[in-house]
């Protein structure tokens, strides 16, 4: 585990001189640690001459930034209208039952985090999902179960 203060300090230095650097900094911190650790916030605030409340406010506004580490795998299922038209709701019910966890939760073994996403731009081949950054179209229950098995391996 890298020291948060050291790595966040490096990230701040890498973004020096950028206009409006806060979102790129959060993305970089999350990339480094898998989430945005609480102890990073005062360091970022000091580095950008912002209040800690401001930094916390920005972080908590955006769905992407996690306060806690996700599971080893992240499954994002599209819940938007075009995927709903192809049965995304039934697939989502199946996914939650199969994984035994609800939206924004991680399976008991810490392996899979399930998240809703509103549109992956795969609207002509839904239901769509993003599994560890990999796009998947025309997802159905059987394929979902196969993915779960793959992630267990």
């Amino acid at each position: 585990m890298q020291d948060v203060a050291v790595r966040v300090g490096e990230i701040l230095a890498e973004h020096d001189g950028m206009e409006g650097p806060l979102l790129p900094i959060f993305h970089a911190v999350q990339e480094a640690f898998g989430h945005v650790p609480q102890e990073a916030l005062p360091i970022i605030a000091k580095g950008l001459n912002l209040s800690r409340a401001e930094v916390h406010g920005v972080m908590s506004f955006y769905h992407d930034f996690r306060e806690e580490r996700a599971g080893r795998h992240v499954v994002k299922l599209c819940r938007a209208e075009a995927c709903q038209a192809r049965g995304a709701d039934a697939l989502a019910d199946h996914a939650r039952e199969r994984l035994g966890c609800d939206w924004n939760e991680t399976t008991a073994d810490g392996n899979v985090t399930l998240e809703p996403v509103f549109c992956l731009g795969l609207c002509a081949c839904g239901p769509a999902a993003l599994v560890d950054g990999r796009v998947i179209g025309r997802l159905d229950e059987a394929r979902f179960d196969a993915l779960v098995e793959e992630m267990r391996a």
Partner: protein
Amino acid sequence: MRIYVPLDAAAKALGADEVARAIAYEATRRGIDVQITRNGSRGMVWLEPLVEVETPEGRVAYGPFDAADAGALLDGTLPSLGRTDDLEWMRRQTRLTFARCGVIDPLSMAEYETHGGLSGLQRALSMTGAEIVAEVADSGLRGRGGAGFPTGIKWKTVHDAPGPQKYIVCNADEGDSGTFADRMIFEGDPFTVIEGMVIAGIAVGATKGYIYSRSEYPDANEVMGKAIRIAKAEGLLGDVLGSGRRFDLELRIGAGAYVCGEETALLNSLEGKRGVVRAKPPLPALQGFMGRPTVVNNVISLATIPVIMEKGAAFYKEFGLGRSRGTIPLQIAGNVARGGLFETAFGMSLGEIVDDLAGGTASGRPVKAVQVGGPLGAYFPRALFDTPFGYEDFAGKEGLIGHAGIVVFDDRSDMLKMARFAMEFCAIESCGKCTPCRIGAVRGAETIDRIGRGDASAIPLLTDLCNTMKAGSLCALGGFTPYPVMSALTHFPGDFTATHKEAAE
């Protein structure tokens, strides 16, 4: 032998990477020299992965391609769909903005130039800023993000605004369900977006540009990131084509907030703030990014600039209907037999799009409703299928074309549920600044639940709430959520009755 296998996210989602690997493997096994080009998508998503082989007669298409067919393809025993250009979907289009998408290697500047790229910019470099602005205004181009504001007028405001530093911001926060044109052009022809931004910069006197894209588009962002690096190395960015004019460009990624597609929320987000909507005035054109004059344009608006500059305003204006000039990339999605991107002049009827182009539903069941324009767009019943695709035509039917996403639903869809979803989505994504949106969306979902439980007295309440949201919200999120809700209620009243609910249970 040159073979094209798309790198488009929709093609990848249907197995294009496996197909490319299989073709490479089978070619090596056979000792055949094959050059595999990862191109953008031709837009026929139901045929993806669509593999093309270059032949003396032109490019021949195979799809939907199964990785197991790689050997047969190389042996010449696989039946083809014929020449790609002869396919009905391609023949019926007017591809101006998407002319190169799916045709060229998206990251080859040489191929980009061979297919007409940079000619628009070269012409722009010989003109004054005011002349470029006038050309864009004459073309009749209106904002393709959905608002339909004339691009030329926006540019003129920024052109005329004083300021030592101006900006071009490309709104690539394509969050509307049913839309994927921005993603496709990023993956299939990214240089055209960059060229459009450079021309905008030269026109209004801006030297710095930002693209604000989405975290939900990892593939598109990867291609655009590479394209920007290549554009710098090849002199499209920096000192623009050695003209002494400067334009620099940075790609920024959002963080999952739908409201950041609204231009003022986007600007706040770009500045590193919460994506909260700003009150207008001041217009972003005068006080935009960092309080400076800023052009905020949609991806497709900017991607259309090069062809307008290359072929002239008069050429572009020829296409279209009424005050909706030029072409529009329709994105046909949801429960459709043939989904994808189809660029055509404004004016095609909704019925022709849904029944003829899309071939009805994928499920084979009757079409019940079509939502046009994303989550804030109205649900149209078959009775409105004669509506021509144009800004004013849809507005006249209490709808909107938005970013031209068209989502088809079959007869199993419950419109009360879809109306509730619209309110729920607005509640989740509201930035919280104005009350009609922040509170109204929550109350709206509750009121629809009451109707669902058989309380018909809640219907006037919902109508009243929708009027308040429409009139009182600061931006389109709260202001347009009533479109899907009220259209569902108006056109599908049967889904809002107690008997319907009992029947469903």
